[in-house]
């Protein structure tokens, strides 16, 4: 049984379509990341799930309940907001206690509420801050308080809207690991919105990529990276983005298949043998899959970004500007250098030039 499902959900704001016919199932205990560029509808999807926005059409279920007509406060969800949305006039303890008061039940008297607040505070290292007001805390501490307020009540689903975007880089990396650990120990379903592919790749058990309100692909991080469903996903995941260039597929009778591009010819493997000979394709190769070789596509280095453990080369190959990730630890490559690039046939992606969709592969 899925913990959450969107079924044909569309959301319109006046003339703009924020979400277009979204159908998505999230399994119980998943860490789903809704990933996409800003304005892709991911936050709107989260807010519809929380009950803060109404879907124009379609149904949303949490567990076996259709929740379209259930008010946000009765949906048994908790949310961490991008701004944290802490109550500025209450102490940290009161902030964390708030959902226990709002969802008052019989076995939650003052004493047991205090114990729950203290145990959550201990878990997140907030014990010494319980009497402070949010205004006296650092960004990272506020983020923890927001997290504590979300988990104190053990809701059915946790929603998080870019909760790390206000933290500095090192704290963000640390918090990512802590969120993964929190998810593992709670075993609850997480739905997490971000535009940051690193957060998605490192934390998610499942990623849903959205663009312009439409779901592009769902899958585990590996699938999304290795078999992007279309050119948008291919370019959105990975940094620098995947190189895409038009080409023509040539199928050889001897099992030697090639794609001819303006920059040269690359060999592809038998996965694409089911396509038509001479068909137009878009070839995709990730920068990390291009290697400097003795023979291959001729290219000229325009600029290089040296990052210590690797260098990113911007090269001209034919008419295309492409990126190459060079991590052999060799010497610096200066601009103007002529070199040749090659890629393994297994690392090459082919997309339909008109629809952008990944072309069908034969099972190997």
């Amino acid at each position: 049984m899925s913990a959450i499902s969107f079924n044909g959900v569309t959301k319109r704001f006046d003339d703009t379509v924020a979400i277009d016919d979204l159908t998505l199932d999230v399994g119980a205990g998943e860490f789903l990341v809704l990933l996409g560029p800003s304005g892709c509808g991911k936050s709107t999807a989260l807010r519809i799930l929380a009950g803060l926005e109404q879907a124009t059409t379609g149904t949303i279920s949490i567990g076996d309940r259709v929740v379209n007509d259930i008010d946000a406060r009765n949906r048994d969800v908790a949310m961490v907001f991008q701004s944290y949305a802490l109550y500025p006039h209450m102490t940290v303890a009161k902030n964390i206690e708030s959902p226990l008061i709002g969802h008052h039940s019989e076995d939650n008297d003052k004493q047991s509420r205090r114990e729950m607040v203290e145990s959550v505070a201990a878990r997140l290292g907030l014990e010494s801050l319980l009497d402070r007001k949010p205004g006296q805390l650092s960004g990272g501490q506020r983020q923890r308080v927001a997290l504590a307020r979300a988990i104190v009540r053990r809701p059915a689903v946790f929603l998080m809207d870019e909760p790390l975007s206000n933290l500095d880089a090192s704290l963000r990396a640390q918090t990512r690991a802590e969120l993964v650990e929190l998810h593992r120990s709670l075993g609850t379903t997480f739905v997490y919105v971000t535009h940051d592919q690193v957060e998605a790749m490192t934390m998610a058990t499942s990623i849903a990529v959205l663009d312009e309100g439409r779901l592009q692909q769902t899958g585990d991080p590996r699938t999304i990276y290795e078999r992007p469903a279309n050119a948008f996903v291919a370019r959105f995941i990975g940094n620098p983005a995947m190189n895409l260039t038009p080409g023509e597929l040539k199928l050889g009778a001897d099992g030697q298949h090639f794609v001819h591009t303006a920059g040269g010819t690359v060999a592809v493997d038998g996965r694409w043998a089911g396509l038509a000979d001479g068909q137009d394709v878009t070839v995709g190769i990730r920068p990390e899959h291009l290697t400097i070789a003795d023979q291959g596509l001729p290219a000229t280095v325009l600029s290089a970004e040296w990052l210590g453990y690797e260098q990113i080369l911007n090269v001209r190959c034919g008419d295309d500007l492409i990126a190459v990730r060079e991590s052999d630890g060799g010497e610096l490559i200066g601009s103007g250098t002529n070199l040749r690039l090659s890629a393994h046939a297994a690392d090459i992606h082919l997309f339909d030039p008109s629809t952008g969709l990944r072309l069908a592969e034969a099972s190997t």
Partner: protein
Amino acid sequence: MRSRRVRNALAGYGLLAPALFVFAAFSFYPLWRVIWLGLHEQNRTGTNQRWVGVNQYTDVLTGEEFRGGLWITAQFVLLTVPIGVVIGILLAVAANRRLRGIKVFQVIFSSTIASSTAVTAVIFFVLLEPSIGYLSDPWIFDLLDPDRAIFAVALTGVWQNLGLTFIITLAGLQAVPDDILEAARLDGFGPIRSFARVTLPMITPTLLFLSVALTVFGLQAFAQIDVLTGGGPAGATETLVFKIFNSQEPRQLGEGSVMSVGLFLVTGTVATLQFWLLERRVHYAN
């Protein structure tokens, strides 16, 4: 080193001078002049005065006239400020929604800020006129009954302040971030509990400012009383400012000055007290 400090100090005083001059001419001097007048008695024509000292202060401030006026003023403040603030909050909450055409209501609710007190008083004079007024009611609003005339005057005061109260409260409400209210909703609080737990504490600085401002307005109310009752019936609506206004003859100038100083002290005390009392319960977001 030393000369630089002197230069800095001179520059500082130089920059202060214009403001200091304006305050001195229009605030400090008049205040001192009123205090001075309170220590003297004028002759019939106001051409000469006699030192009477602090006695005039003790006599007037403990006298029937001042205490009566103070009591009527206090009634006016107590009738206008709490009711005004509550109605202002209710209107602001009602108008703080994203609805088509809500701006029209926001303009209507804030319109009293643009009507002069005299015009308001004249409108209410007609509405409260004992024989033809729609609002004239022998049980509550009766301009001819010494016990009830103050209610009618206070009604006008509340209405007059409503626009200001509404605008300031609405601004306070709109400064409460949406996501904090959404967090309260997800924490399980309905609209009323969310208002009491989150919105109200977050707008207390606004309400503090408002209650101090309205109290000062109340203590200084004059025009609506002058138009509606002229202080009557039988002096039942003679507030302090009204009494001060009526002591402009030279012989009463000393007495009026003492009452002015008295009102100044009362206003200062009440405002300080309000700030002190409310500050302890007020949350200031940082």
